[in-house]
């Protein structure tokens, strides 16, 4: 397992560096120059993270490996496909929230307590990280059988757009308020209610349980797809 983790880390570490650099630099430049209010700037950083990180993480794991032709060799190793996917998932999770941790540290150092309290900054980044992790799991499952990284990126963007539109629907249609628990954007938008137009808000614990169950189900399905990939490769050989 440690060998698998080392291999994935060696292949994906440049993405972690890229994500950390982009988000941290964006936060640092914006907060130091004070172009806009701190809250607005941090929302931009969060938005950038939500759009960039899950796509960056998910497309480089299985589709890229398949594109390079090394996936079959990897699956031919005397290791269960699920363990391979666990290693990839752990690195993918690190790519999903690692840059946000870097951006949060930079934000606290640059502007903590200035216009927003430290707690508010951390809360914003924690909610953003939860959204990116949830989106990552969805994208990992959706792109598990994609033949190349480019197509996987397009499909990942499609997943993102789907959830954006669905979440907008949940927001405007009162009858669907409870479906916020299914949306990755629950953590960023669905967990608060406007006091002037109150609506049913799903308790955070319930939403976490639902999201956890969805993530487990998606991961289990992806693992099955990968195992089927192994079986078909063995059948061809």
């Amino acid at each position, binding site marked *: 397992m440690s060998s698998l983790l080392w291999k994935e880390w060696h292949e994906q570490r440049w993405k972690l560096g*890229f994500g950390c650099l982009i988000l941290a*630099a*964006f936060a640092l430049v*914006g907060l130091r120059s*004070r*172009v806009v209010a701190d809250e607005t700037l941090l929302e931009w950083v969060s938005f950038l993270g939500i759009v960039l990180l899950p796509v960056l993480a998910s497309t480089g794991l299985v589709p890229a490996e398949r594109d390079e032709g090394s996936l079959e060799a990897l699956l031919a190793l005397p290791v269960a496909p699920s363990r391979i996917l666990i290693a990839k998932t752990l690195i993918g999770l690190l790519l999903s929230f690692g840059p946000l941790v870097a951006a949060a540290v930079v934000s606290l150092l640059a502007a903590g307590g200035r216009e927003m309290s430290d707690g508010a900054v951390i809360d914003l980044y924690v909610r953003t990280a939860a959204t990116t992790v949830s989106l990552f799991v969805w994208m990992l499952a959706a792109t598990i059988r994609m033949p190349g990284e480019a197509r996987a990126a397009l499909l990942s963007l499609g997943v993102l757009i789907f959830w954006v539109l669905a979440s907008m629907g949940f927001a405007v249609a009162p009858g669907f308020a409870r479906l916020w628990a299914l949306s990755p954007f629950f953590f960023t938008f669905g967990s608060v209610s*406007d006091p002037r137009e109150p609506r049913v808000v799903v308790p955070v614990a319930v939403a976490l349980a639902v999201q956890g169950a969805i993530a487990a189900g998606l991961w289990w399905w992806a693992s099955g797809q990968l195992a089927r990939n192994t079986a078909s490769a063995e059948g061809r050989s």
Partner: protein
Amino acid sequence: MRQLASLAWKEWHESRWLLVVALGVFLGLPLAGGLEAALARQKFAVLASPWVFSLGGILAVFVGVDAACRDLRGRLEDFWRSRPMGTAQWLLVKYFVGLAVVLVACILPLVVELRVNSTCYAMPYPAELLLPWCPFLWAALYSLGFAAGSLLRRGAHAAMLALSAMLLVYFLPVVLPPIKWMGLAWVIEGSENVWSIAETPAHFHRIPWLPRGVGFQFYQLSFVGGMLGICVASLALAVGAVRRNLRIESGVKLTYWSVGTAMLILFASAAFQLATNLPILHTLDLPPEEDVIMVRSDGGRGVLFTRHIEPGPYGYRPDAADGYRALTLSDRRIEAGPLIAAPGPERGYWSRARAAWQPDHPDVVHFVRRVGRDQKGYCELVTASADPAAPGSSALPLWRADEPSPLGQFAWKDRLYAIGLRSDGASDRQMMATLDISDTRRPKVVSIEPRPYWGSGAFGRHDMQTVDFPPIAGMSPRELLRAAIGIDGSNRAPCIDGDVVCGVNEAEFFTYRLKQLDEHHAVFEKVGQYAQSMLDKISGTTASDCTAAGGLVYVSTWNRAINTPRVTVFDIRDPKRPHPVGHFAVPGEGPLAVWPLPDGRALIGGRKLYLVGPPPRVD
């Protein structure tokens, strides 16, 4: 020659489909739109310029990448290198055939639009302004795509790299003023669209081959030189790379890093230009439901006006009556007293930026406001005293005002002058009230009369501007001038600092210097201007008010695109060259309230109140 013709034919044969697709989009779609309009019995028109303007650059990049990558791969490249012809010759033929495809695809629809449309449509960038300048930009972008394709030899990666370069070519001149001369928006807006030789200003030159005359000035040719420079450099790079068989091994890393770096460069450049650089000496925290709308102080005491706000679905919105607090300032500290509700049952509308305030009574403010509903209302004078032990009098009704109008007030010694529109449904009349404020907190009406004409008109439009003085006895010409400028309660009213009047309009910050002064009027001459930056124009920044003191002008602006208020500080000590020396951006629910103090510090109010020092670039 036959060899060149063969090469050219081969390149044309392989790239003609790009021309067909491009013309289908740039010409076919507008023609379809014109036919649709004609069938709907409207005027037939071909509107190709929006398509060409928005997609022409992307087409140029893709054609350039395609021209280079088509034959520069694997054995095909070996085949072409083995032919008895120079590599440079081969590449040059590729380059110019592809360039011709781009230019024909983009220029032809614009020419058709000019020929077909008999009247000019109000487009942001009409065809006659795109035609002189955009071909050079398209050539530069095509060259960048060609160079990227020659270096990377992989179409997708080269396209991403070239698109990153395209972002820099489009937007870096917008955010970095030193290279604004390479910006398309800069060069287009410098052109005049004239309709006859007689109308061409003297310093403009016509471009004769354009059906409707477009004027240009010689300094705009710097844009042409810049774009041609990019073309030559890119072509040289491409030829050198292919001749020496140099290539960049590209992958996903290059794609991500190139796009990410381009975006970061653009953001950092924009942030550098707009950075907040006023040193914050002290921040006064206000309750979260308060937002500052006005502040006045003599540097020691003052008054702060706030409004009550409530969170709404689209952010905070004003909810309840205004209030005010007493202010006490020291060198680096602000303290505020308890909140006092503004007098009167309703909020009303009032010209908060021009409230009458005198340093002799720093905790008292007078302002005129209109109150009313359902097209019935009246103007009243409100006296706000921030001293709880000495409250102001109740509101003083002045005249009926069924219609809202600009209001203004000006205090001088023991007199207060207020202006506004009296409207009672039957007639409208400008009125002026004179009030006795010898007891500052209890003004008394001396007279309310129809206001004779006086005023300044709109500064900024003409090179000379005359200000007529109000008929107030006892004031010196200087005091009359300050009254005439200061009483103007309209939005974006000018401000005065010594002999200089400053103001803002949609396009620029301007300065006027006093040329002539007598007892009845003053004449000003426009001496300087500072055009709104491209960044501000694109983001829809609008200025709301300006206040001047000590050679510095504080302009409060609102950025519509990102819903953010800002303050920009201009240095007008040389009125011929006004230039920004300070920026400040903090949260607020409307334009920030600004008040410069006599010692160079300033008070800026939004969701909090900030005591800031002078801009660091000012000596």
